[in-house]
């Protein structure tokens, strides 16, 4: 039983064959970590699912969300259908206030759950009138996560939420994601293996355009040699 199924996903962008038949499923609860070395195509996988690939990209394969085929569906429809996205660069609108960023994410026909967002990130309520561009990196990340939590999503795609954050802030973001993961399943791209260890139950590793590992995350991280060869890092740090 899976919430998201990716089958034979094949993506070429500007002549380079980035994904070569990527196939995996995402469990309908908890966190599935999407891992791999830099530039291996993790972000491309998320963008291909969402229909956000750059113009001229070649896409083949099939994506199913909740059992329904959604390949090449328009992004906004897919998102309204319950797929929340937090991009790698956080995608907050710097010229808009924090409150406006949240208001923008409200969806017609669904009551926005501000209680959940402000309960998890009280900072966002206090800074409602502040321009999002003047927030710190960690606060921007919380805003980006808060935006997808306003709506009742069926799955969240979260791309490198701890990238570029100070260690203390990484802990805060990870704690927030942990709380979120109790409620809604998540496909998480993350380079920080300590965070992966803390959050993820399942792991998918992409190497050379293909899926090189799927299985329980702890098994992967505890097997040092495998982690090293697939991810290009040493033994996973403990959180």
């Amino acid at each position, binding site marked *: 039983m899976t919430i998201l199924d990716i089958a034979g996903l094949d993506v070429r962008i500007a002549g380079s064959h980035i994904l070569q038949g990527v196939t995996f499923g995402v469990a309908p609860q908890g966190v599935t970590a999407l891992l791999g070395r830099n530039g291996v195509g993790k972000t491309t996988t998320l963008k291909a699912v969402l229909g956000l690939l750059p*113009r001229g990209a070649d896409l083949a394969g099939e994506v199913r969300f909740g059992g329904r085929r959604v390949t090449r569906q328009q992004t906004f429809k897919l*998102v309204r259908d319950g797929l929340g996205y937090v*991009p790698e660069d956080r995608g907050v609108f710097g010229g808009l206030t924090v409150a406006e960023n949240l208001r923008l994410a409200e969806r017609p026909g669904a009551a926005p759950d501000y209680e959940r967002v402000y309960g998890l990130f009280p900072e966002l309520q206090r800074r409602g009138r502040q321009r999002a561009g003047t927030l710190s990196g960690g606060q921007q990340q919380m805003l980006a996560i808060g935006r997808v939590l306003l709506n009742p999503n069926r799955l969240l795609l979260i791309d490198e939420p701890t990238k570029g954050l100070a260690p203390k802030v990484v802990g805060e973001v990870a704690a927030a994601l942990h709380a979120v993961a109790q409620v809604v399943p998540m496909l998480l791209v993350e380079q920080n293996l300590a965070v992966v260890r803390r959050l993820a139950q399942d792991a998918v590793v992409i190497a050379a355009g293909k899926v090189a590992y799927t299985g329980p995350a702890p098994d992967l991280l505890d097997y040092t040699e495998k982690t090293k060869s697939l991810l290009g890092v040493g033994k996973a740090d403990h959180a």
Partner: protein
Amino acid sequence: MSTIVLLTLTGLGLAALYFLVASGLALVFGLADVLNFAHGLFLSVGAYATWWAAGHLPGAGPSGWGFALAVLFGVVCGTAVAALVELVLIRPLYRRTIEQVLVTVGLSLAGVALLQASWGSDPRPYPRPQWTQELTTIAGARVPNDRFLLIGAAIAVLLGLLAFLKYTRIGLVIRAGVEDRSMVTALGIDVRRAFTLVFAIGGAAAALAGALGGVFTGAISPTGGSSLLIFGFIVVVIGGMGSVTGAAYAAVAVGLLQQFVNYTSPGLGDICVVALLAVVLLVRPQGITGKVATS
């Protein structure tokens, strides 16, 4: 002193025209990434529709409320043409920049040709309501009232646009879309629905510029839209490629510079405007405000 006041107010009148043209261009470019060379056509449609209405539309006329009705008719025509252009010609070509440029350039040429075929290429005398030709004395300068008409219209459009962008949901979507369009769609919003509206708003402002610009110059010709459009583009670039407020600042700078320099040495003003554009691009390539719709 009186010369300076007259030059300033005339320059601001010109700035008002530039702003009316540039505000729509800026929003269209900022949100939809469309370089709309057909924007001058919306201006010409506004000018010719107003001119036609003043002579033919029942209730409309060359002066007083009749003229106001004629202007309203011109603005409605410009808005409709702009919305139609977006729906029929631009919408199928989103993300295909070269094709868009070709279509809009072609459309502007075809529009000029159509106007020439219908009403000839010679300038047509334009109705100038009595009030706009009267003089108001300010600090010793006798200033024709049409300057105030233009300045007032531009300020009204500026404030209206800012309020629309700030206080409405669709305004919020437009501001966000100017910053990062694909992220707006990734929040579940069909951003393209805002494109038609932005085109219509831009068409309305340009048509208003055409309708009131005729009063300012006293005559309209088929190529009038394209020549104003050049300065509209310059104002958009100086202002920040997507910023309404930036376009307002830039329009004032360009209008005043052009007017003052042309007074001391006729013809040099246009060159100075291009020089100003070059300086801005070298020193501050993101424009006065950068790509933020309302700041």
